[in-house]
């Protein structure tokens, strides 16, 4: 896939003036999203994610003069009101609380997006039917929003957002109010739309699970700043910022299970030649019978205390907490052997001395 930028944000600052202080909701952010990306932006609430994405369609204007907001190559900030509104129709948006109109039926809610489309009445009806079919809600067209479940309401939101055939879809915590199963079906739908319509998706969320499931790129936001950004696989396997690690741990549970693992007898009383290590591996490495090799080559046995294996964009990413035991010298050699095979090895505790975790 050619990397063709569809959204370019440069030097974005959004500062809110409050009575006694200034709040930097977005602080000097640069961000480029390529066509066809599913770009995840994670962060805790209040990190500035929602404010940042609202800069894309200028529901929120940057408060500094140096800011650049380009969508499909057009500078948005200098557009007159009317043209800006037209551009907004090219950027669909879905919301955590769906934001449907309760006074309108499902069909009318979708139709509402088509007011300025210039379509004839017959074409309106046809397009609405098409959209409801796309999100799997054809049978609900005459219902009102209150009669629908959360997942169904979000599907209506998606149909409405896609009505004007946008190139970009902004999802603002769209799955945060939904149960896990519904979340998954909505994420599947988004991934499907990304493929079918070559729709570029910006997915804001505080759930790393959602990012893991469908995003190809991810950025982490904290206190208005982008603290980390990259390919999903790279960020997931080699996170740099502490917050990124925290977020990743919310889905792998490696760090949090470490506390439990460390209380186990076998870990409490490690003998010489025994080490507690965290092993991390990406892709092909996983397929090698590594643990067997350790025993064959070094007579080092591995006791797996905790493990997590993810398939991210078709590539396996694994993390294991393991106690290795053997002759002290052989254990050392085994660790080197694993590192040579592109396994990241972090010694957390060893039989003779304790080692600080520094990965």
């Amino acid at each position, binding site marked *: 896939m050619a990397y063709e930028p569809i959204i370019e944000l440069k030097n974005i600052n959004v500062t809110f003036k409050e009575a006694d202080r200034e709040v930097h909701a977005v602080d000097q952010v640069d961000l480029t999203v390529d066509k066809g990306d599913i770009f995840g932006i994670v962060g805790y609430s209040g990190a500035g994610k929602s404010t940042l994405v609202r800069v894309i369609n200028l529901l929120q204007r940057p408060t500094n003069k140096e800011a650049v907001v380009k969508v499909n190559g057009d500078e948005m900030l200098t557009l007159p009101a009317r043209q800006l509104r037209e551009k907004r*129709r090219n950027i669909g948006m879905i919301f955590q609380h769906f934001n449907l109109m309760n006074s309108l039926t499902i069909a009318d809610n979708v139709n509402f997006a088509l007011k*300025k489309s210039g379509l004839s009445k017959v074409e309106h009806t046809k397009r609405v039917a098409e959209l409801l079919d796309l999100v799997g809600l054809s049978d609900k067209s005459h219902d009102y929003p*209150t009669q629908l479940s959360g997942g169904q309401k979000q599907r209506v939101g998606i149909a409405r957002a896609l009505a*004007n055939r946008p190139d970009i879809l902004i999802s603002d915590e769209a799955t945060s109010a939904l149960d896990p199963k519904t979340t998954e079906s909505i994420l599947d739908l988004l991934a499907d739309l990304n493929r079918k319509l070559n729709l570029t998706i910006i997915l804001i969320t505080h759930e790393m699970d959602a990012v893991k499931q469908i995003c190809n790129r991810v950025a982490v936001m904290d206190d208005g700043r982008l603290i980390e950004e990259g390919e999903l696989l790279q960020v997931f396997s080699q996170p740099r910022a502490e917050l990124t690690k925290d977020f990743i741990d919310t889905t792998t549970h490696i760090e949090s299970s470490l506390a439990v693992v460390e209380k186990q007898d076998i870990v409490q009383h490690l003998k010489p030649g025994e080490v507690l290590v965290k092993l991390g591996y990406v892709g092909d490495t996983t397929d090698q019978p590594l643990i067997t090799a350790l025993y064959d080559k070094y007579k080092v046995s591995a006791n797996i205390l905790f493990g997590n294996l993810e398939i991210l964009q078709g590539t396996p990413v694994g993390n294991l907490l393991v106690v290795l035991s053997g002759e002290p010298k052989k254990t050392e050699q085994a660790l080197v052997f694993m590192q040579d095979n592109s396994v990241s090895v972090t010694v957390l505790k060893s039989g003779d001395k304790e080692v600080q975790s520094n990965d």
Partner: protein
Amino acid sequence: MTDFFNQFMPNVVANWTGDNGMVQGIWQTLYMTFWTTLIGGAIGLALGIALVVYDENGILSNRVVYSILDKIVNVFRSIPFIILLSVVFPITQLLVGTTIGPKGALVPLIIGAAPFYARQVQNTLVQIDPGVIESAEALGYGPWTIITQVYLREGLPDLIRTSVLTIISIIGLTAMAGAVGGGGLGYIAVSKGYQRYQNDITIVATLLILVIVFIIQGIGDLWARKIDHR
């Protein structure tokens, strides 16, 4: 039947038709209520919408315009109606050429009702989920579409309810305006019933006002319930 009326409410029967009769009173009350609702309602609605869209979080957020409108509404809401009646006297003379009768009562009635309704409209419309407004903005709609297609449509059930409330207060105001020369059932109840010790007139005038109120309330409730899908 006629005997019953003659026996228990002789004064009502005697004053049923003719100048300042009950029938005329009903029409005058309806006349004042109708025009006040129509003109005062339109002004109040526009003011109420303006208060919402020019508000700090509104789609046309403008501190100066908001605070001017807000103060105007507050001032007129604060003047007791009975005083307003006499204060606007010169304006009334200028606008409608008379200060007595139902027509003369219209100006103070409208000035009294419009700010009241404006606040009602404002309170109703600010309750509409800001997210729904934002989603309309994200769909590329401007203020006019958002006001007419989102605010007024989403707010309609509650607008009907507050309108009914306002119309009922307008009927109350017409009675007060009547007392100082506006005519209508209020005038009849006070000047022909109370002041001349003709209690049957007071009671019947009261009942007639209640009937008008109940009819308006009933229609409003039915309508609001029919279109409310929350």
